[in-house]
């Protein structure tokens, strides 16, 4: 997006045109696959369970760029990887779905 000329809010059509750039088209195709998996997860688990777990994707990106693209990872980024992993481990320990009391039970409580 930064390779494009500045986009002004009074010309929204230029923003629509950006969608048809080849790299953005490829990105959108991959995002659709991500979204389908994400929706399936949301159909049986809480948002506050799925969202942090999806954050694990950032760790995968960082590790791929380290061992596949041989990029260097700063200590700051390693700390980020550790924090996300611990966070996901935390949420994965708990239940994936909030237990809703059945309606009859709710009245008696």
């Amino acid at each position: 997006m930064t390779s494009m000329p500045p986009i002004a809010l009074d010309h929204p059509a230029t923003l629509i045109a950006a969608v048809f750039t080849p790299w953005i088209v490829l990105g959108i195709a991959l995002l659709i696959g991500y979204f389908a998996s994400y929706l399936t997860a949301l159909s049986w688990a809480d948002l506050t369970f799925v969202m942090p777990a999806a954050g694990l994707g950032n760790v995968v990106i960082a590790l791929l760029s380290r061992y596949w693209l041989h990029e260097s990872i700063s200590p700051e980024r390693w700390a980020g990887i550790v924090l996300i992993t611990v966070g996901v481990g935390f949420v994965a320990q708990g239940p994936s779905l909030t237990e809703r009391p059945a309606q009859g039970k709710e009245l008696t409580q």
Partner: protein
Amino acid sequence: MTIPLPALQPGLWAASSMIAAIVLASTAGEVLTAAAMKSIGDLDEIRAHSGLKGAIRAVLTCPLFFAGVGFLALAFFSLLYSLNHLPVSLVAPASASLTLVTNAIAAKLFLHENVDRRRWASAVLVCIGVYLLAH
């Protein structure tokens, strides 16, 4: 010799409003989408009963789902717009990490999810982690 034009850097307020727009739109989108998926029910079960087409139909006939997707699209275009004006090293970590925390608050308020200490801790840890990683 050409003199490069000085880049127009948005001020603090403009930058904050762009990021706030992304965070608000994406939180609304996530919460509405999650509510839609909960109202549809377990997609794996629907697929086992009526196949992939049935599962896709179940999602595409849910009005709440389109409300959610509308806000997610709004968030996406706000992201594209802000990337055109701000560096990605600011926008990506700020919006991704703030969205985690606002989503935890919105899920508790609107979806009545049981956000216990474990989930708060994990939302905050992943939030800081994403910020450090994407910065």
